[in-house]
């Protein structure tokens, strides 16, 4: 799990991921060659399918029955006894993914074209190629790699259909250890993240957050560590050039005005105004609203560009005012928001409230 989370963070930032280099090499390799359907196309399996689907289409019944085209993949399935015809490339790819902790599978996309009907008695053969393996993606289910394959399905040697399939091989997202405060706003407090209303899962839709209701972790490095030390002490520190005294924010190693690498800090008074703002409607990101107003979790939220009294600007949240009432020029005052047990952030409260 630790490995997965670390890789997940790296992937989200677009940093190199050693595993990905290996995975990408599988594109174009065969996953199954001359695979053989375990059963010829047959009426009982067609009937069981139609029964399950509630499908009463007359073409799938009677002496001239054809198989429902959407059964295409079913004829290639390994079933309870599994596949015996998969290539070593397929085995290696899945072993790599399993070994890296991406042990769970969920299908996300299926694209099928039907070239000729399948009839009882047709013997099925198929060839599958690994089309691509994605970079590391973080979804609401967890972090992992999408694997896309393309299968040509033949009946009696003749191409009957093509089947493109995408799965996510993933490490399940860590479940929150105990019901945290934001969860109490959910309709199903005991349910894990994937069902909470504030986090309607869309497995094909990747989002840069490992835990649905936690904000992304800041990337702290030697150039900005002083800023985060200031936040921890509830001080908003702005850099000041040691040579020309120009203030700068965000934190950088050198002065953009004179190039000097000398600097010290000044503590911001906390007064500021909204210089500009945008309102995020989509994608829904509950972490940014859950702690401010649980009832609005997942709804729109305002992102403000705050001009501090000292003259520099920073991007932050504007709290204490509905997202649609944030205005340019609105006076705001610094406060520190405890987003979760590990993360505290400077935010700005609209003045005149409370």
């Amino acid at each position: 799990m630790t490995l997965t989370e670390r890789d997940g963070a790296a992937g989200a930032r677009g940093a190199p991921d050693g595993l990905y280099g290996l995975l990408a090499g599988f594109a174009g390799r065969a996953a199954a060659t001359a695979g053989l359907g375990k059963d010829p196309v047959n009426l009982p399996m067609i009937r069981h399918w139609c029964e399950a689907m509630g499908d009463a289409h007359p073409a799938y019944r009677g002496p001239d029955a054809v198989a429902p085209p959407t059964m295409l993949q079913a004829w290639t399935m390994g079933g309870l006894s599994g596949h015996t015809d998969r290539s070593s490339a397929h085995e290696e790819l899945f072993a790599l993914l399993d070994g890296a902790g991406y042990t769970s599978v969920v299908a996300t996309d299926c694209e099928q074209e039907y070239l000729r009907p399948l009839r009882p008695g047709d013997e099925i053969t198929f060839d599958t190629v690994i089309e691509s393996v994605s970079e590391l993606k973080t979804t609401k289910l967890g972090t992992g790699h999408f694997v896309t394959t393309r299968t040509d399905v033949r009946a009696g040697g003749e191409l009957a259909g093509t089947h493109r399939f995408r799965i996510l091989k993933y490490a399940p997202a860590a479940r929150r250890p105990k019901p945290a405060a934001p969860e109490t706003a959910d309709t199903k407090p005991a349910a894990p993240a994937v069902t909470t209303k504030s986090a309607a899962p869309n497995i094909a839709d990747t989002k840069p957050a490992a835990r649905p209701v936690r904000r992304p972790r800041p990337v702290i490095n030697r150039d900005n560590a002083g800023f985060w030390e200031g936040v921890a002490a509830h001080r908003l520190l702005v850099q000041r050039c040691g040579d020309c005294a120009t203030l700068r924010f965000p934190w950088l190693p050198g002065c953009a005005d004179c190039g000097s690498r000398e600097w010290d800090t000044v503590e911001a008074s906390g007064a500021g105004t909204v210089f500009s703002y945008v309102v995020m409607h989509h994608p829904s990101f509950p972490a940014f609203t859950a702690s401010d107003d649980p009832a609005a979790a997942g709804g729109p939220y305002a992102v403000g560009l705050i001009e501090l009294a000292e003259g520099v600007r920073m991007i932050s949240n504007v709290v204490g005012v509905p997202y649609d009432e944030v205005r340019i020029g609105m006076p705001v005052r610094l406060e520190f928001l405890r987003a979760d047990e590990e993360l505290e952030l400077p935010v700005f409260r609209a003045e005149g409230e409370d």
Partner: protein
Amino acid sequence: MKAGDELPPLTIPITRTLIVAGAVASRDYQDVHHDAELAREKGSPDIFMNILTTNGLVGRYITDHFGPRAVLRRVAIRLGAPNHPGDTMVLTGTVTGVDGDTAHVRVVGANGIGHHVTGTVTVEVPR
């Protein structure tokens, strides 16, 4: 049939039986489609419908509407919010184009937590 036509919605109660029957009929024995305990270990609150069943239901929705002569030519779907037992999925469709006897239909299946499936279907309806 013409572009812009709306198909009448089809409401499908998502029962545990439907999920398991669909998984078995499609020969998909992944535990997350029949074993709630193992599904929970994998981060899901319960079992969920497999993609082959969703594919079959989308195909059925289209041929139910276009009638006994309708033949599916292409079905392309993407899954979103999972179908768990106790939920209800409402399939809706819009004809986006017609080319002779062939119609292109955009399909959405919405459940209680969002869009379970979005996709496009090409269906031939010989006159």
